[in-house]
């Protein structure tokens, strides 16, 4: 199935992908990258696990949002499923900080001492929040704050996770859901949909026995629980946890022929990913995209409280169709996931195709489209959920524009660089807001 030449780790990760795809999470491929087909939910979950990212998984109830994340985490982090289930936070309005982060040690409290019993959720690197939009916004914020920094605080005590990833699932809006407010949504790197697999695969799922038992291991689960609830310091727990996880990894390898990733494997993979840079096309293309999602000629930048003026010269660009401004988290997410994808495919640089493939999933949840755009397009024939569909259309539009003027844009950027180096040149003009942004940078910083 996969033809690209990869080193050992890429092969190992791809085997994990195939194992999940073939045995645990049946679904159709819905994304093609460089001639290879993937299921976006598994692929993005794998990259989230590897890249220490944050993924929002949406979909109808019962279509495998949580289970896909659980399987991926089990094989990427070598945790048996039983422990992952016992560490998940489920979203409901009564959820408390004590159940999410930690609670006072009641025995010690009786003796007049303060100590914290940390939850499994705050201690292990795999953080799964089921139905995050059923949590009140304050609790959503608490989790996302913790995951943003890797710090979990309670009663003036703190533990620091140096490795973690977040998977949050969300059902579509119904009577019991809260909204995930825009600043919180923005913290997710990607959004994917766990889709209906089609009637025939669904029929097979119904026919087959439950497959999750193959990633269960009661002894490891008990051992891990014991370490997690022990009173030793968090830093001392980590090597003990790793030891048990490695033993579970050995078991999985012997029983299933799949080699989960050890801590040193994950570290090595991350350092390989971080060494990958964007080629010039991918860089120029991403700059063009970021411009369209942030530019406003009239008011200097997009702001959600300000509307476009009638008759603006840049009416044909995406800035005219959206309400909000792209945050600084967007380029980070794009780079991070495109890096992961390029690494997985064995490429030496991040190119346009990596970026284009990842973009819709990094944009879909972040962009606030104007109401007229939503009403114009909501009935369009499509295969994706509406936000991902709109993001894919936007990416297609910008790709078309980039194809028409990629050389000119790279020239403009090269000239910009030379002006910064002190040459007396004039910045290039062009029919896209990106040229205005180049000029602004030059004028702002030129002595």
């Amino acid at each position, binding site marked *: 199935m996969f033809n690209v030449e990869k080193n050992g780790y890429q092969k190992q990760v791809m085997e994990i992908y195939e194992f999940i795809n073939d045995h645990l999470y049946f679904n159709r491929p819905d994304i093609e990258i460089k001639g290879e087909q993937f299921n976006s939910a598994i692929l993005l979950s794998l990259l989230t696990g590897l890249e220490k990212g944050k993924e929002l998984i949406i979909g109808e109830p019962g279509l495998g949002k949580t289970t896909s994340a659980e399987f991926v985490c089990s094989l990427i982090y070598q945790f048996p499923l039983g422990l992952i289930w016992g560490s998940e936070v489920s979203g409901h309005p009564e959820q408390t900080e004590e159940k999410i982060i930690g609670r006072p040690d009641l025995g010690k409290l009786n003796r007049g001492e303060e100590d914290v019993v940390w939850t499994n959720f705050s201690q292990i690197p795999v953080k799964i929040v089921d139905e995050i939009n059923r949590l009140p916004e304050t609790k959503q914020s608490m989790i996302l704050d913790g995951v943003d920094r890797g710090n979990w605080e309670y009663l003036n005590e703190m533990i620091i996770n140096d490795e973690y990833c977040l998977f949050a699932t969300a059902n579509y809006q119904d009577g019991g859901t809260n909204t995930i407010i825009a600043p919180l949504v923005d913290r997710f790197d990607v959004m994917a949909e766990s889709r209906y697999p089609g009637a025939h695969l669904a029929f097979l799922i119904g026919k087959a026995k439950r497959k999750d038992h193959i990633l269960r291991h009661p002894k490891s689960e008990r051992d891990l629980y014991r370490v997690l609830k022990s009173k030793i310091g968090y830093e001392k727990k980590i090597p003990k946890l790793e030891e048990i996880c490695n033993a579970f990894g050995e078991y999985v390898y012997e029983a299933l022929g799949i080699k989960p990733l050890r801590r040193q494997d994950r570290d090595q993979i991350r350092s390989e990913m971080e060494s990958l*840079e*964007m080629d*010039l096309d991918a*860089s*120029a293309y991403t700059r063009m995209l970021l411009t369209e999602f942030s530019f406003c000629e009239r008011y200097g930048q997009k702001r959600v409280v300000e509307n476009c003026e009638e008759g603006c010269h840049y009416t044909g660009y995406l800035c005219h169709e959206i309400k909000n401004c792209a945050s600084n988290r967007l380029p980070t997410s794009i780079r991070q996931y495109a890096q992961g994808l390029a690494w997985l495919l064995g490429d030496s640089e991040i190119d346009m195709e990596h970026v284009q493939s990842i973009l819709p999933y990094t944009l879909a949840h972040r962009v606030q489209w104007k109401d007229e755009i939503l009403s114009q397009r909501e009935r369009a024939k499509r295969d994706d959920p509406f936000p991902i569909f709109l993001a894919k259309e936007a990416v297609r539009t910008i790709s078309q524009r980039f194809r*028409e*003027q990629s*050389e*000119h844009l*790279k*020239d403009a*950027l*090269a*000239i*910009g*660089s*030379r002006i*910064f*180096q*002190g040459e007396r040149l004039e910045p*290039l*003009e*062009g*029919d896209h807001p990106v040229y205005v942004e*180049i000029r602004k*940078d030059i004028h702002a*910083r*030129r*002595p």
Partner: protein
Amino acid sequence: MRTSLSQKKGPTGRLNARGRGATNPFEEFKSFTYAKADFHIPLDQIVQSTEVVMDQIRHGYEKLLEEEAKELVWMVQYNTIIKAYEVAEKYVREIDYSAEDIEDFCFALENTQKIPYLIPGPAGVYISALCNYAKEEEISLKLSELKTEINLIGFRLPKGKRLVIEGDAGDFTGIGLEGGELVVEGNAKNWTGAGMRGGKILIRKNIGLHTGEWMMGGEIYVGGRVRGLGNIVEGKVFERDKLVYPGKIHHPNLYY
């Protein structure tokens, strides 16, 4: 050794005049070598190349007017048309243009000061020559916004070509048709399809008098009303899917 923040160098290693390190946001493009000596905005290049083609087309039309219509009176006689067409062919053959340029020329005829006058006859002959020598097999001209109806559109349209006119056409539409397909998404005036040898003319709305005069072959389909047929030699005329020529009785130039 401490380095104060204000003395820190940016990635380029340059300090600006204020002594503040300026991060070069375009650093990665510093080694990108651009190929062109002078730079044009892509849109400018497109506009420029379109203007060159339009100048050539305009020049051909002016030459045709000089040679054929100096007196501003242009008699529609078959010999005159053939002669004008030969002149038009001579200029058109040398131009590299597209179907879009033909449409632009039609609008330029009305809207620009650069073209001295629009004479529906020569203009139609010239546009027909442009259509007949165009690279595209199918040409669509959106002429519904034109104030003047252009005569002689579709003159000698050859086999394999399809010309669609959005809007109304003037007199002598599709005359001498040579196997092509001419569609008028509106009305056509008198003498439509006169002398046509083969092919198909489709008029969506109404058609005028002398339809198919001296027609030697082919078919004319009219979606609306036919005001009058000409002396047809060979061929078929349909009015609202009903065959009106050859019919049981031949009514030359009679009003229906």
